[in-house]
């Protein structure tokens, strides 16, 4: 795979919630045209890192540098639990966001079609299933064609077919030149889809690279094996950051 210019450079980023260090010395880059999957156990700092990358949290230390700021919208963002103002249809909701970047109804409809929700345009957002709400959230994240799109667990709670569809969308976005950063617990889909994998454990990056390269390095056959080899906590336990064990 051809490597491109990094769109996002993260240098020595720390993030503390009060006295609890959640991210510790994170340094990495994210390139255009790639899907980077962030994996790690619950409480490892994935969401915090994604929020720092999206510019929603100011790092306690270190820097996040964006290389391409010519876009109307620099970063697209899907929160972990997307929700929308009730009383509006799906189309009206996306039209609102499209309007903020100077686009209109046509753009909103295109985004909906892109995630396969064209038929739900006139449905009230409060009448959507969890999976459909997440797809609307993904459509929202693409509005304004941001060069970087951050998706926090975009496949969470979706059926296998829908999860696959979400990862296909991520791949299509990357094919169009977008740097897609997503977190996921679906390691098989990540293994099949992601160009890069970043394994986070206890607020630190423990592995970063192409899935095949990491597998080869560790001499294992699957990303799940890589994950189990890389994560310090015992399976079935949640490591609570700030508490040493």
């Amino acid at each position: 795979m051809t490597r491109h210019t990094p769109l996002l450079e993260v240098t020595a980023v720390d993030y503390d919630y009060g006295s609890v260090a959640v991210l510790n010395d994170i340094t990495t880059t994210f390139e255009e045209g790639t899907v980077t999957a962030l994996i790690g156990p619950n409480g490892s700092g994935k969401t915090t890192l994604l929020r720092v990358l999206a510019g929603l949290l100011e790092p306690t230390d270190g820097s996040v540098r964006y290389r391409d700021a010519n876009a109307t919208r620099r970063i697209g963002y899907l929160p972990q639990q997307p929700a929308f103002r009730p009383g509006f249809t799906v189309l009206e909701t996306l039209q609102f966001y499209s309007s903020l970047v100077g686009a209109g109804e046509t753009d909103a409809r295109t985004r909906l079609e892109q995630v396969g929700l064209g038929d739900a345009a006139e449905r009230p957002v409060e009448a959507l299933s969890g999976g459909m709400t997440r797809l609307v959230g993904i459509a929202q994240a693409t509005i304004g064609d941001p060069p970087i799109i951050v998706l926090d667990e975009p496949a969470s709670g979706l059926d296998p077919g829908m999860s696959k569809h979400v990862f296909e969308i991520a791949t299509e976005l990357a094919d169009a030149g977008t740097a897609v950063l997503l977190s996921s617990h679906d390691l098989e889909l990540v293994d099949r889809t992601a160009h890069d994998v970043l394994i986070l454990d206890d607020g630190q990056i423990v592995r970063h690279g192409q899935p095949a390269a990491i597998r080869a390095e560790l001499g294992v056959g699957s990303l799940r094996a890589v994950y189990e080899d890389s994560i310090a906590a015992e399976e079935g336990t949640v490591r609570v950051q700030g508490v040493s064990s």
Partner: protein
Amino acid sequence: MEHESAQSASERSPSTSHRLGTVIDRELRTVARTRTFYLLTAALTAVVIGITWIGGGYAAGYLPTAVDLLTPLELLVPIVAVAFGYRAILADEQRGELDVLETYPISPREFVFGVYVGRAAGLVVAISVPLLLAVVAVAITDSDMLSIYATHTGADSPLLFARFFVLTLLFGLVVLAIALAISSLVSTTRSALGLSIVALVVLLVGFDLALVYGLTEGVVGDESLLHSLAVSPLSAYRGLVLETVVTVASGTGPRVASPVASILGLAAWTAGSLAVAVWSVSR
């Protein structure tokens, strides 16, 4: 610690007025689609018409109607205004939409101002409907059938009611700004309700009591009382109504407020509250 970009502004971004219009449109639709706001308007209308009817103001004229309505509206307008604003920003925060909006080219100032204008439009309708119905009732049933449309000492006039009407709207808009500030500061609906009730008590009772206490303790002097009233939005509103509506018509009596100080007080509360909301949203 930094978030940097090589080029911060985008030439393709829509104009400020476009972004504001987008947020205002969303708020207007929200207000138009929320049944609670219709119920509030209907309730306020029933109370205003009821007071106008029971007080006999509809037959006595515009000024007696305004005087009859002053005290009830001092209580009801803040309640309605708080209802329009106390969840306006909080609800977006709770859904995570404020985070999403942060990734769009819209500033916290534009967002807060757009929300305020949109909600204000709804509030203006909610206050205007009952007051306009009251003035129509007076116009139809007034026994004197006034034909004087200039305000001068000793004469009743629709213009006096118009002043009361405008001042009541202004009072409502000030309280709405305070409600938006509360909405931006809290993180749960329960705390929004709690803080709103506290704000209403402070607004409706606390400031007046503080002024009375200050007066009795000598902290507030007799000569500065007229200006000190401007510190409280409620006292400023009441003072403005008495000074520019009631006293004008009666033609006699001591000054009850400083109109300039009262207007400045209301403006400061509005600007200060919106500034707090902008600061809170940008945190």
